[in-house]
């Protein structure tokens, strides 16, 4: 009985259909520039932006998506740490349709939140550009985005200014109350 059930399961297994769409085979061909972006001295609390150029070299229009990708440690440039939060990176358009043999720009904004702990850091994150397709084989191109934040500096001017202000303010208040007491 058990053998009969197994056989009954195997027969339909032989009838299964697998894999891709029925459209004609196509190639996939596109490029992204720049291949690497290096942002230096970005102070925490500030934002900056740059453009990615996606070039559809195919003879038909394609939809492209842009996402972030955290590279594994061994793939990062030397001395680069993992980018702390990919929500700090945004795109003017995470998806874009590009006509045949044409190119389009996507604005990338990198915004670092306020905080001394984000100062003086060297991070790396990849920006992945993929061509949407139902086909078996797809291509994704990664742009290396190297972000270095400005080092936290001791603000001597602010410190002296504040100190002088506090001292003078203290003297003024003291002088005022002294005069007031004397006048009584």
């Amino acid at each position, binding site marked *: 009985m058990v053998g009969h059930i197994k056989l009954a399961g195997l027969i339909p*297994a032989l009838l299964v259909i697998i894999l891709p769409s029925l459209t004609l085979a196509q190639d*996939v061909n596109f*490029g992204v520039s720049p291949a690497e972006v290096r942002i230096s001295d970005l102070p925490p609390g500030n934002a900056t932006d740059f453009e990615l150029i996606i070039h559809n070299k195919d003879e038909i229009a394609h939809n492209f998506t842009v996402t972030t990708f955290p590279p594994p440690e061994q793939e990062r440039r030397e001395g680069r740490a993992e980018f702390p939060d990919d929500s700090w990176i945004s795109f003017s358009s995470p998806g874009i349709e590009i006509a045949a043999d044409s190119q389009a720009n996507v604005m990338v904004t990198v915004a670092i939140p306020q905080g001394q702990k984000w100062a003086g850091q060297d991070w790396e994150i990849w920006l992945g550009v993929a061509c949407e397709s139902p086909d078996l084989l797809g291509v994704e191109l990664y742009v290396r985005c190297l972000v270095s934040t400005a080092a936290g500096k001791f603000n001597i001017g602010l410190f002296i200014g504040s100190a002088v202000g506090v001292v003078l303010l203290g003297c003024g208040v003291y002088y005022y109350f002294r005069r007031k007491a004397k006048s009584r």
Partner: protein
Amino acid sequence: MKVAVTSVAIAIMLAIAVSLPALAQQNSTITITMTGLNEISISLDKTQWPLGTIASNTDYETIPQIQWCTLTVQGTCNVNTFVVGDDAKWVSDPNTYKWTLSSDGTNGEHIYGLWFRISGDTTRGPLGDGYVPITKTQGEFWPYSAGSSLAPGDTKQFGLRLLSPTYFFSSRQMQTQITVSAVAA
């Protein structure tokens, strides 16, 4: 009284006057370097492998075996390449049935294996025959960690092998995707 108020006012103004330039210095220069406006680009001359009806627990290889698809490095920079696979999903209802992609190229019930082999590579892979499993974790395509990234103009031919599950539900059209990716070396 007037003298005291004046003193306090002067003190505050002095403090502000000294502090403002220092505060203004918080806006340092941000430098963005686009490395030489390099373009990264690879192309594949084939993207589909229509297998048709398949049997369980059977190996299927592309024809020709290892020269089925050609990857060409275009653009202007050397690249490191990767490959990653995914589960095969039922086209009619991807959320209800799938074949899980094996993590080592083997198969099982509703588990299938995927492999690739680059033409000329006869030693890579767990069996030492050049076939390397494609898994859901991004792995090296061309073995750049040995120090050989691909340069513009380089081409690599490769083929695929699919090991079907030992058992699966019949009459369902399944679809999967293999992504070949590249990053500047």
